[in-house]
């Protein structure tokens, strides 16, 4: 239990650090790749739907704390994304890289769509299209999520040897 909490905390911390670091490198990268969604998907696939939902809630609330929008919008969408990621990955095999890419891409798109929907319905907010970079987000998120999962799997396999 404590180990899981520490693991989740480290995942969220890594996402926060990478997010702030990306801002220093390039602004379109911040919009093109949602590192918080990546962290939620990776953690949910590894730990299950409840852990994913909790990580999603924490990541979302951190995003909301650094945004002027309604506090809880991103939290809600990320919670659903985390739960779905954990739940679906238990039902179907998403381990092959190709499947993982499609799975992460679809979840990234669902997360974005849900956030846009909630922001439109509840807050009537505009979106940072940034020359279309927002539309690239599901693909960027899928690429990074697949890469992270593959790297983690390789590290795990080496440790097992």
């Amino acid at each position, binding site marked *: 239990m404590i180990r899981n909490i520490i693991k989740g905390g480290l995942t969220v*911390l890594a996402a*926060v*650090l990478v*997010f*702030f*670091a990306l*801002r*220093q490198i390039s*602004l379109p990268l*911040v*919009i093109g790749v949602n590192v918080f969604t990546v962290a939620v998907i990776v953690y949910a696939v590894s730990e299950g*739907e*409840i852990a994913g*939902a*909790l990580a999603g*809630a924490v990541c*979302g*609330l*951190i*995003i*909301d*704390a*650094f*945004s*002027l*929008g*309604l*506090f*809880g*919008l*991103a*939290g*809600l969408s990320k*919670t*659903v994304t985390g*739960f779905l990621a954990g739940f679906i990955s238990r039902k179907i095999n998403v381990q092959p890289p190709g499947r993982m890419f499609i799975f992460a891409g679809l979840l990234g798109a669902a997360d974005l769509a849900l*956030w846009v929907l909630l922001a439109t319905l*509840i*807050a009537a*907010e*505009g*979106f*940072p*299209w*940034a020359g279309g970079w927002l539309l690239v987000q599901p693909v960027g998120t899928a690429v990074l999520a697949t890469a992270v999962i593959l790297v983690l799997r390789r590290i795990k396999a080496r440790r097992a040897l």
Partner: protein
Amino acid sequence: MPRFLKDRKNVLIFGGLLFAQLLLLSLQVPRGSEPSAFERVVFTLVSPLQRTVFGVFRGAASIWSRYVYLRRVESQNERLQDEVFHLRQENMVLNNDLTGLRDARELAAGLAGLGEPFLVAAVIGVDASNPYRSIVIDRGSGDGVRPNMAVVDRSGFLIGRVISPVGPGAGTVQLITDDNSAVSVRSETSLVQGILAGNAKGGTCWLRYVLATDESLAESEELLTTGFDGIFPAGIKAGTVESIALDGSLFKRIAVRAHLDWRRLTRVAVLTRPVEAAPTGPR
């Protein structure tokens, strides 16, 4: 724990999480409420991380450019010396031109009008969901930064105002391109007044409440703050009129290109004069 609860534990926890966040959202509707204590706590806890990452990147960039990547320093130095020489000449010519165009009294009055105490701050982050809405600066309540202080860029163009939450070492600045931003402005030559409102979709602004019958405003005209809102000092340049259209309503549809370029925002100045009448409008 009863068996039926145990069987549905995952769904119950998930439902509880969703319910808690919906509750959080519903507490903030209608919009315009101050940030909750929870939001302030999250901001205060995470903003030091942002400062650390910013510091690490600045340090790494400094080490790289000052101690490692010195390949072109000599040629760069020569080029810069040439540039300084030319700029000095240009500066002298421009100063002479300026003296010829304005009398000394008018110039002194103009400079005195813009003279505001300010605090230089580095931009350490952007709005996590929409970069056109807000930025985070490395100055906070510990440096004397308070909500509703106006913020300008290094050229003196209007960027926005400080809003809550303001942490001890970091503050949030609402950009003028945010949907909820409203700045009282007037055009420089025709003196048409309106409200400069943000358009966070594209990083531009709208000039609102200019009557459709008003023919005096022209495209490319400069917009300056009036100071009527009690937040932004008068005379700060905010943007230029990009297009004027009629859409059949009572008011004109006027698009404004804001001077702020959020991609180049690295350092800003917070105008630290005391806020006179701080309105408690939407964040």
